[in-house]
């Protein structure tokens, strides 16, 4: 039996099963939710042994039917998504006790996961849109999960802007369908070559830059993120910042622009140039705004915008080194930012505040939270030998390699800003004098600390030991998929 359709079917089925069977006993929801994400993680690791594979849903061959495509890039994103999702569900066992309805939480969470896995696996552009909507609609509900005024407002803002971006994407898909008469990604790729110079084609490209740029929170389109990510429960913030903006924003960019449109975008410098400026603006704006935040989760949210900028700058270079750096930074940011949000959630769980001015000296009271928060911050600030240092180094090297000296210097300057706001956070939260009202604070419950420890270990070992293995097994196939460009088309249509 093939596991590829189960990557989508398992979380979808569990999402509907959990609210039915665990109404009586809450623990059932915990067990089922964690089992689902654990088996997804194991399956996503197993997929690396399979190699490239095309799966025809219902036995219908493309271009008629919907197909799932597993190649290096999908396998890479599946690994990130399911790794972080498993750790987050483990964390939710204790953390979500402070909210009311765990059943609905797991249900929505697994639907969001099904949506992300579906976006990453599908080979059909309309199917991609449907999975994208499944993921974001669950995310709207999860952002407003606490149902306080602030959370509902953030959720509504996210809903409005998210719908605008979905409309852009849907309009783009509609134009593409009218141009090519097909919705299969590979088939679109094979038919678009004749018409790629036309105005309609460029309109589609611009619509996709708007739509997916809004989903990825690139700078002119970032307004929803600093509200939505802090307002969600911390476990959901970790998924939104770590995974959702990448699986729904960055992945479709890479897949469509490299594998489907390929040739016109790599030859003309127009779109890469736009993406580079958007990325640079994101890096600088995110970092500058993060410097002045007092809300710890809001600071991390702005930092996410800044890091998306790094990723976009690196992959819009189009060189193998740039793509490798972008993917590595995607991995590093997913794990480290998830770790930071989980630590912030742990602080919020005990202190019931997110204001860093009201914290202080918490390293001695909450050592595990403190250490994992510090590992996350050191990694993202780019301190050797942690993983974040290597990914930033590769980005800078890729920029130098492509002859963009100015951009390289700019990236180094922004990294200094990044170090600045993380040091400020560290100074106020974990070090400094312990406040009197915080004397009775205890460390968080066991599932929360355990999941933070696992993620810290991954972050540390990633930089110190695992990097060569990660590169040869996980990163290189993904880079090859993107470098080969439109060979994706012949792979799908031929297989």
């Amino acid at each position: 039996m093939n596991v590829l359709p189960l990557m989508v079917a398992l979380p979808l089925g569990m999402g509907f099963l959990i609210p039915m069977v665990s109404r009586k006993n809450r623990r059932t929801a915990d067990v089922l939710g964690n089992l689902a994400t654990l088996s997804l993680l194991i399956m996503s690791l197993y997929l690396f042994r399979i190699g490239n594979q095309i799966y025809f849903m219902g036995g219908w061959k493309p271009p008629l039917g919907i197909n799932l495509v597993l190649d290096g890039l999908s396998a890479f994103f599946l690994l990130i998504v399911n790794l972080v999702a498993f750790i987050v569900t483990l964390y939710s066992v204790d953390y979500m006790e402070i909210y009311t309805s765990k059943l609905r939480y797991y249900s929505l969470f697994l639907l969001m996961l099904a949506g992300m896995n579906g976006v990453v696996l599908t080979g059909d552009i309309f199917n991609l849109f449907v999975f994208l909507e499944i993921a974001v609609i669950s995310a709207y509900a999860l952002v407003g999960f606490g149902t306080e005024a602030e959370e509902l407002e953030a959720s509504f803002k996210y809903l409005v802007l998210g719908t605008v971006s979905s409309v852009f994407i849907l309009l783009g898909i509609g134009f593409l369908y009218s141009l090519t008469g097909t919705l299969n990604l590979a088939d679109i790729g094979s038919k678009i070559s004749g018409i790629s110079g036309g105005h309609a084609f460029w309109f589609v490209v611009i619509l996709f830059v708007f739509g997916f740029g809004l989903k990825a929170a690139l700078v002119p389109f970032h307004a929803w993120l600093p509200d939505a990510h802090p307002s969600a429960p911390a476990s959901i913030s970790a998924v939104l910042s770590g995974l959702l903006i990448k699986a729904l924003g960055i992945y479709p960019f890479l897949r469509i622009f490299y594998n489907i449109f390929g040739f016109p975008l790599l030859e003309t410098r127009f779109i890469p140039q736009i993406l580079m400026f958007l990325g640079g603006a994101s890096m600088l704006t995110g970092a500058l705004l993060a410097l002045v935040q007092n809300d710890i989760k809001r600071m991390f949210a702005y930092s996410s915008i800044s890091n998306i900028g790094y990723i976009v700058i690196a992959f819009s270079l189009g060189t193998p080194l740039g793509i490798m750096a972008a993917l590595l930074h995607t991995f590093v940011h997913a794990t480290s930012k998830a770790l930071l949000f989980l630590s912030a959630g742990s602080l919020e769980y005990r202190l019931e505040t997110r204001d860093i001015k009201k914290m202080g000296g918490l390293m001695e009271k909450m050592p595990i939270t403190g250490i994992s928060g510090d590992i996350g911050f050191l990694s993202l600030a780019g301190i050797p030998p942690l993983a974040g240092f290597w990914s930033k180094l590769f980005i800078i090297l890729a920029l130098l390699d492509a002859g963009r000296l100015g951009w390289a210097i700019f990236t180094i300057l922004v990294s200094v800003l990044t170090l600045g706001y993380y040091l400020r956070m560290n100074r106020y939260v974990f070090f400094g004098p312990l406040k009197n009202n915080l004397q009775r604070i205890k460390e968080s419950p066991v599932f929360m600390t355990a999941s933070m420890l696992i993620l810290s270990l991954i972050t540390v070992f990633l930089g110190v030991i695992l990097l060569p293995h990660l590169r040869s097994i996980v990163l290189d196939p993904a880079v090859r998929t993107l470098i080969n460009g439109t060979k994706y088309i012949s792979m799908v249509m031929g297989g």
Partner: protein
Amino acid sequence: MSEKEGLSVIVKVVTRWIVGFVLLFGLYIVIFGHLTPGGGFPGGVIIAGTFVLLTLAFGKDTPLRKLNSTLASELDSTGAIIFLGIALLGLYFGSFFAENFLTKLPSSYFKLFSAGVIPWANLAIGLKVGASIFMVFIILSVTRVVGLPNGEKKMTRKPTGRRK
């Protein structure tokens, strides 16, 4: 069923006559989905429409007595799981996920029992859509925004029924 709730007696009597036919029409659209225009989704919407009609005419207690929100939410999940189950059976008996694994004899074309798993999938979708649209309507109608004395606004559940 209290006389005070809902709309006038004319509306109630007409609704009582019509509602069975509307439900029957919805079921027809679902069951004949693979032969005539329609299918699980439109049929499910019509089925949910009967409950919405009952709510409008009699107030929300009458439909909720027939189908309370817990049951509706479970029917909703059941529909989704049946649909997924049919797709997984395709993987088990056939060779692909969502494969139409039942035999499709040419002699059965245009008969009610034809098209393999499509009618069963339509039934599952009808169940899912009917239950979830009813749930959406109930949830939209049981909550409202009230102004608190201090000027803030709060979303709250309406008190059930007009008890006198």
